[in-house]
């Protein structure tokens, strides 16, 4: 068997480098060493390194929350993608493609427009509830005893996204200027407005889903054999499916509430990881989490740098990279789809 002892050290090194790169990048030039000192000062609450107050302020309130939010959301979306692919027994399942992100965005939009001033947590809750309902609807539409149909899965996604789009369109019409800005941001997906309370919330969601997904990894492997086979192995299939759908809705809902719709991370990352280490969920899920964090943080660095001093919504960057990849996967599966 191939020795993969190199994998964890190298991917974690890459994560640290990406983290530093993200903290250094921005319109205000802050030297890498100063940035590092500022992070140390922030982490220890001590003045260990010399950093100008305005630089410390930028690191504390802008760059660190932004980097951490990109990483937690990337790790969450990548794991939710991997789990949905296992649950649907289909490598094309992704929260964005099958419409779950759109549904969650509609839930968030309803909260922000119809219940203004109800606070960030209620927006997250709205996104979670709508994400949960959407996942259940898509699962119902696309599943049969023999698995899920790719065609039905994608068409369900199109239908849900269209419905959610119409709902968000209607809310846009009703919204005031402030809400309108937020709605536009969501639909594009952006980490620019990262706030600490969303970092905390998405970190808590990430810890919860990572722990529970990892505990379910053996059962998820068994589920790939088919539902009847998983039952014969002793898996409580219905309980497992409900638990995973619930956790995906928590992960995607909170991610969407925090950053808007960021597509393709959940599709691309697990696929790359499967090519390197195989499909066993026990290894796939943690590695996907780290790679998802790296890729979304890098995409955000790209979003900040490509048209500097202005910036692109990060959802646009992930779509530009992910959509061709999706087309490539569709071509690969073409014979099975027809």
């Amino acid at each position, binding site marked *: 068997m191939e020795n993969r002892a190199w994998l964890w050290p190298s991917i974690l090194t890459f994560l640290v480098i990406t983290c530093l790169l993200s903290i250094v990048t921005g319109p205000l030039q802050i030297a890498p060493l100063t940035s590092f000192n500022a992070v140390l000062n922030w982490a220890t609450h001590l003045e260990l390194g010399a950093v100008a107050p305005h630089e410390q302020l930028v690191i504390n309130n802008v760059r660190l929350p932004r980097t951490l939010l990109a990483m937690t959301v990337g790790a969450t979306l990548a794991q939710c993608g991997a789990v949905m692919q296992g649950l649907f027994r289909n*490598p094309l399942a992704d929260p964005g493609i099958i419409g779950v992100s759109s549904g969650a965005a509609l839930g968030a939009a309803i909260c922000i427009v119809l219940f203004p001033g109800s606070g960030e947590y209620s927006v997250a809750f709205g996104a979670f509830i709508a994400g949960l309902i959407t996942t259940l609807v898509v699962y119902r539409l696309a599943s049969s005893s023999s698995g899920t149909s790719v065609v039905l899965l994608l068409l369900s996604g199109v239908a849900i996204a269209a419905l959610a789009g119409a709902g968000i369109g209607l809310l846009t019409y009703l919204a005031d200027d402030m809400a309108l800005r937020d709605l536009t941001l969501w639909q594009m997906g952006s980490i620019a407005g990262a706030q600490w309370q969303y970092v905390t919330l998405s970190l808590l969601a990430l810890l919860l889903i990572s722990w529970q997904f990892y505990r379910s990894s053996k059962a998820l492997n068994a589920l*790939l*054999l*088919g539902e009847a086979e998983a*039952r014969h*192995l002793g*898996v409580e299939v219905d309980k497992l499916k409900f638990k995973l759908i619930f956790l995906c809705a928590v992960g995607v809902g909170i991610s969407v509430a925090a950053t808007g719709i960021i597509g393709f991370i959940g599709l691309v990352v697990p696929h790359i990881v499967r090519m390197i280490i*195989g499909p*066993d969920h026990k290894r796939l899920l943690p590695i996907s989490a780290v790679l998802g964090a790296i890729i979304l943080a890098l995409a955000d660095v790209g979003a900040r740098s490509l048209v500097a001093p202005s910036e692109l919504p990060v959802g646009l960057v992930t779509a530009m990279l992910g959509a061709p990849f999706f087309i490539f996967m569709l071509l690969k599966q073409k014979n099975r789809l027809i």
Partner: protein
Amino acid sequence: MIDIKHVSVRINHKPVLTNINLHIPSGKVTALLGPNGAGKSTLLKSLSQEVQLDAGKITLNDRPLQDFDRLELAKHLAVLPQHASLTFPFAVHEVVAMGLYPLTLSSKQGMELVDEQLSRLALTSLKYRSYPTLSGGEKQRVQLARVLTQLQQAQRPPVLLLDEPTSALDLAQQHRVLSLAKELAHQHNYAVVVVLHDLNQASRYGDNLVILERGQIVSQGPARTTLTPQTIKQVWQYEPQIVNAPGCETPLLF
């Protein structure tokens, strides 16, 4: 071992099994036979708790099946599916390791058990091969290794259910799988239940043949007493030619 008493099953309000009474002993191969729609697969599914009984009860070692929790039952009763497809490219040893799910073993013990089952089914050379690239016969052997792994912590004689295990296999593979089923029953005291279409295979490998017609048992016993021209004509509406070939314990049917 397994006792089926007065079992009836309806699917979509249609009776599929009616008042089935059957004893399945350990150490024997019980073959379920009958034309399409006779209820063979439903009977197998009622043993694996995939269908709800309308009436009657099934006990395993005098304990009703529904009293077992899923993990406990999985240690004693395993099902080899007709064919199991996997969308993702698991390696052969990973598929076999899925059989460890209900067991309580350390990862080292688990790996040893997987290696043991791989070697038992002559799959060691394919250990790291990707499952989707295997031939139909190889896939079936891998699934059998997985199912046997699952039964390694059974406290009492385990039950192995095989649903048309030979349908996707060539001639040699068919005989290999059925020989192994017979060996498990005779040498390792497994209770083997197998759904078959081929009467000659049933007569060669089955110790107790159960013939079903329209959800009812019409005959059961050894091949010599059950596979009679009258029964075959009644159940399959086909008049067979029966040849007593030299060297064959059971008659051949054409």
